[in-house]
């Protein structure tokens, strides 16, 4: 029990809430109609990307504009391995995560030598470079057009991942793991330190914390989650394309986290869910669905910077992690 408490999973409201969410999501598997079934699976995987981003931005204050490169590392790592090396899903996941971590250790470590606006631009530039490199090796990556991940490789432990049940449950599994990790971090000493660094870096330094190391750690966890999400996305939904490495996919996790509530554990999921359906509805009306993204960003930053759960936490539920 003490270990559970140390992991942020002691017996209290917060734990109950998060376990409750997981239970509901699992139950939905049995009742959702086809379209929403695959949508929720997609949302769960993308929410892991968002949760990863939240560790960097929401908790540590690292406003990265380059997280698409970590997601893409996972996506292309798993996808290319499946396509050219006949690596199945489990191997693909590992490769994807390692690829993302490699990018954190190289690009991320360099970017962390800057802060604020410079950090935003440097991460943006690095992600752009990765995006362009994908194009440059278009012979393998097929650039914008992308490629379909071979069906045979989309399998884990004997189950075909393009089949609805396996797909949903794997997405759910990844989501559950990322959610628990997020909750543990948020309620642990690590989370407290990251928030402290975000709030008053100088003070944290003078309490003896190695700021650079802590930020790098946050970025490793963040990039790792994003990479895992990318790899799983490739395996579950079968398509790899350069759009996922573009600036759009660096902006989207920022948007999802802002909408749901930066620095809350469930915020990223709430944000991904809300924006997914909002964009879904809008694309039914016009090809210019990104307009919604633009208006949402402006509206959020002007009137609603704490997002949905952030505002709820501030007004009514200060116990919400």
């Amino acid at each position, binding site marked *: 029990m003490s270990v559970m408490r140390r992991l942020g999973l002691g017996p209290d409201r917060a734990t109950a809430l998060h376990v409750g969410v997981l239970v509901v999501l699992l139950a939905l598997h049995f009742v959702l109609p086809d379209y929403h079934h695959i949508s929720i699976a997609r949302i769960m995987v993308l929410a892991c990307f968002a949760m990863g981003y939240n560790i960097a931005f929401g908790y540590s204050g690292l406003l990265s504009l380059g997280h698409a490169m970590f997601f893409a590392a996972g996506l292309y790592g798993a996808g290319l391995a499946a396509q050219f090396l006949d690596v199945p899903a489990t191997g693909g996941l590992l490769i994807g995560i390692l690829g993302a971590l490699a990018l954190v250790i190289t690009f991320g470590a360099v970017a962390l030598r800057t802060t604020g606006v410079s950090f935003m631009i440097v991460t943006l*530039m690095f992600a752009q*470079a990765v995006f362009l490199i994908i194009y440059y090796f278009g012979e393998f990556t097929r650039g914008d057009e992308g490629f379909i991940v071979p069906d045979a490789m989309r399998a884990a432990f004997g189950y075909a991942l393009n089949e609805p049940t396996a797909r949903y449950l794997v997405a759910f599994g990844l989501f559950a793991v990322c959610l628990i990790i997020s909750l543990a971090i948020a309620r642990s000493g690590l989370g407290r330190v990251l928030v402290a660094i975000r709030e008053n870096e100088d003070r944290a330094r003078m309490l003896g914390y190695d700021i650079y190391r802590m930020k790098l750690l946050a970025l490793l966890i963040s990039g790792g989650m994003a990479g895992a999400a990318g790899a799983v996305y490739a395996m579950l939904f079968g398509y790899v394309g350069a759009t996922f490495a573009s600036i759009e996919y660096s902006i989207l996790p920022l948007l999802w986290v802002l909408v749901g509530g930066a620095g809350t554990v469930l915020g990223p999921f709430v944000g991904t869910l809300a924006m997914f359906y909002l964009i879904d509805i809008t694309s039914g009306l016009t090809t210019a669905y990104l307009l919604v993204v*633009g208006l949402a960003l402006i509206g959020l930053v*002007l009137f609603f910077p704490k997002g949905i759960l952030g505002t709820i936490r501030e007004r009514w539920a200060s116990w919400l992690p």
Partner: protein
Amino acid sequence: MDFGPYLLLASLEGAVGAAVLAVTALGLSLVFGVMRIVNVAHGEFFMLGAVIAWWAASLIGVHPALGFLGALVLSPLIVGAVALFAERTVLSRLKYDPEATIVATIGMLYVIQQVVLMTYGPDARPVQPPFDFRIQLPWFGYSAYKLFVIAAAIALMLAVWAGLTRTRVGLMMRATQYDRETARAFAIPVDKVYAGVFAFGAMLAAFGAVLVVPVQQAHYLMGHDPLLLSFIVVIIGGLGSLRGTVLAALIIGMSDGIISVFFSPTLAKIIATLVVAMVLVWRPQGLFGERPA
């Protein structure tokens, strides 16, 4: 063709690119220098300038030169108005907080881009150059209009430099850039300066777009590359330094043009983005800028 003419062609093409880039990047540089914010929607102001130029030219339609002239006048004015509106309604409310501003301008990027998509559509449309003859150079004939673009850009930048250094308005801008608080103490209307600079920066982008649109075509996604290149120019040249911006635009524009002709455009861009990241990390003041206070 052997090497000589190829190089001259690449250089001229690079020079045209550099000229337009210098004008566009100058807008971004001024905004950062005076207001200390990064406007990610700058490329969209550029695109808007091109699209409005097409609209103005097709509206006037009598003669390409007249249409072009109309575009040259109308486009910067309209884009400037849009920028002013955005600054008053959004950016000033955010009190120019750097991170919030970037997020807001990303939003503006999408709004402008998608509105153009909804109205102008996804097609690329050409605009007639005002005049269409070729000047005979040593190995080949080259478009006189492109040479005009280079000349116009130079003229514009000299005008801006004169304005900045010789007029009262320019003095107010430079004072605000140096020290916002002291400028306020000297009764300089900092808010108005900010609004003006932001609008002017957008107008410069629009102007650059009008110059280039007879050469390229007007397309709703055309803001992406100018944004990236302007970023690169401004960061390498030093945020807020006019001389640095011009020099960097020259270097970037020329090398982008030359590398693109001799190698691949993608490789040129990869190198450029990585260089800019490295400059920001190790020499954040760029080549000519001053260390931020």
